[in-house]
């Protein structure tokens, strides 16, 4: 329940004014029952009817007189409703899921997949999520994970598909899951799932978009046909293959792999990411966008900041109309719909046409002079201040960081 106090100025004024005809009634507010002038006990029926907010988040009215409503302070229920906890003590079987964890969090694709896993697990089975590397996710419980296997040792960091495959094979040996579910995505799941399939000798169903009555449908070929087949053990599912879990909470009880996982000598050596010119990445695909609007006064500085940060440039329509940026860089309803993980909006007020274009962005950071603008309401982090000064400071920070980093590496 929120602590917002709703004041009733008129009632307060009446309470102060002893000459007001309703003064007496105001005095008795909050008591529920009081002795009237003729000795009869008076009850306030409104007080009981005001009710209280019960455990399920619903308003409850108790007329037994035990519960005293809080009528003096009307408050609004805004709290989190606790969803029922689904416990699987002794799983009859496991449904194993290896989510992508792009950026260390469950993606919407992962959540859909966990929803599908939950459907397949029913009440007897447990959904086992196998998560590689360090993660920043705190919502495994709400996503439908009954058992959580964290493999965050050093050998699982970075691009190590062969080592991860060994771990999945160890999971196969230890838990013998009834089904394996992986996202059929380019962010790792599609590759790892196919490696697992080839290694286990299982024929997977790929690009699955529907599972129904023991049959699954997946897109085949160039997407003009569907392949409908009995549900195999290994599924590589497309996004929106099922509804994500939303009605229950789950334990996400940690489990470990006893006996550990064999280590292999990697045959594929990862030499690290390659610097790609951010300006050449199509804006719709860019991971990190620095976007400028009418509040950017110094565009040379803006371009320098984008270069220092390694961000792809974007712009609001006003910035484009004023010829500060090319039309192809416009973000929004009539521009490009972007999917960046981090969207840094500098001097953009957040008109609805602009906000539509960044609906799919994960983290939005706003720099603006006006603390009341709509962009601030959308943003996860907002800094109120002058764009030029903040961009300048940001450039200095990042340059210092880069130089420090290269000195450490040397």
């Amino acid at each position, binding site marked *: 329940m929120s602590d917002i106090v709703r004041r009733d100025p008129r009632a307060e004024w009446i309470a102060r004014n002893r000459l007001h005809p309703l003064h007496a009634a105001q005095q008795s507010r909050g008591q529920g029952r009081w002795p009237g002038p003729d000795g009869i006990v008076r009850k306030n029926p409104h007080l009981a009817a005001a009710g209280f907010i019960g455990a399920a988040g619903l308003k409850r009215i108790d007329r037994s007189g035990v519960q005293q409503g809080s009528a003096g302070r009307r408050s609004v229920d805004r709290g989190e409703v606790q969803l029922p906890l689904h416990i699987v003590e002794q799983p009859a079987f496991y449904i194993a899921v290896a989510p992508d964890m792009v950026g260390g969090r469950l993606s919407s694709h992962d959540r859909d997949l966990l929803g599908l896993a939950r459907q397949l697990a029913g009440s007897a089975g447990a959904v086992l999520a196998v998560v590689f590397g360090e993660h920043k996710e705190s919502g495994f419980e709400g996503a439908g994970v009954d058992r959580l296997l964290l493999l965050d040792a050093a050998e699982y960091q970075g691009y190590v598909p062969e080592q991860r495959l060994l771990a999945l094979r160890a999971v196969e040996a230890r838990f013998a899951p009834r089904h394996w579910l992986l996202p059929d995505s380019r962010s790792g799941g599609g590759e790892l799932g196919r*490696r697992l399939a080839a290694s286990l000798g299982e024929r997977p169903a790929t690009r699955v978009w529907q599972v129904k009555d023991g049959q699954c449908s997946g897109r085949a070929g160039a997407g003009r*046909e569907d*392949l409908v087949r009995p549900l195999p053990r290994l599924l590589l599912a497309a996004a929106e293959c099922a509804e994500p879990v939303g009605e229950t909470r789950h334990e996400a009880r940690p489990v470990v792999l006893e006996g550990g996982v064999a280590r292999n000598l990697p045959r594929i050596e990862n030499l690290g990411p390659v610097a790609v010119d951010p300006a050449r*990445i199509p804006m719709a695909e860019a991971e990190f966008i620095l976007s400028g609007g009418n509040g950017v006064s110094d565009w040379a500085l803006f371009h320098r900041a984008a270069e220092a940060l390694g961000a792809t440039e974007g712009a609001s329509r006003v910035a484009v109309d004023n010829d500060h940026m090319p039309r192809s860089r416009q973000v929004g309803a009539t521009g490009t719909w972007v999917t960046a993980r*981090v969207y840094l909006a500098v001097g953009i007020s957040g008109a609805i046409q602009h906000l539509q274009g960044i609906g799919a962005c994960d983290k939005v950071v706003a720099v603006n002079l006006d603390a009341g603008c709509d962009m601030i*309401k959308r943003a*996860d982090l907002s*800094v109120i201040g002058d764009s030029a000064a903040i961009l300048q400071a940001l450039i200095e920070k990042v340059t210092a960081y880069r130089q420090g980093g290269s000195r450490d590496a040397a």
Partner: protein
Amino acid sequence: MQPELNILALVSIGAHPASGRLRRAEQDARAVELGLLLAGPRLRVLHAGDPHQEALRGYLGMGLDELVVLEQPATADALPAVAGYLAGSDVQLVLTGSQAETGEGSGMLPFLLAERLGWPLVVGLAEVESIDDGCAQLLQALPRGQRRRLRVRLPFVASVDSAAAVARQSAFGPARRGRLEPHEVEVVDDPLLGEASLQPARPRPKRLKVIKAKTAAERMKAATAKAGGGSGQVLEGLCAERGAEAIFKLLLEEGVLR
């Protein structure tokens, strides 16, 4: 160009996504293009299927003299034939597409082939930077236009996707002149076709925005609320350095500073 390198590209029959007309497959043609850049006319190209398929001439038109076809019906499993052919050859690098445009198109063939041959597999090959001392340095395409540099020892299998260089045009003359060289192989039937059926693709149901609200007030709020209203952190009255510091910290946490 690496004249001493033995490279083989696997090609399948493509289909136009809208009309369904058979053609060279988009990704496989990119694999052939990459092979031609690396090995020139020494590139070998292999298909398992029908040697009279005219769509295969689309690959010949890229400047190949011949294309080896392991003769088998469309219902047969391509893997045993291809693996058998490779086992007896001196091929060091096999290039494939990532997903066929006709048939199942599961994208499993390169994985199964690598597993069967015991070779490493690289997916999403975008560019071969260099090959020396039996080691190849490659660029792998990642989502969001990113690239990763890998080093792999020969021999290996690599699948090419749409991030690799666009295939050259197919010219009519070479396409006519090139030879489709049929080879006899043992035919192994694909068990999948017994239990699965191919149907015209059904449009996927659009996901509705489900509002899980128990009361009318909550529904009203959900219908009128602006996206993610007011949950963010607002830093007001800080100097520019402190503000930049906070933004910088978030960028670091999200790992977008490279």
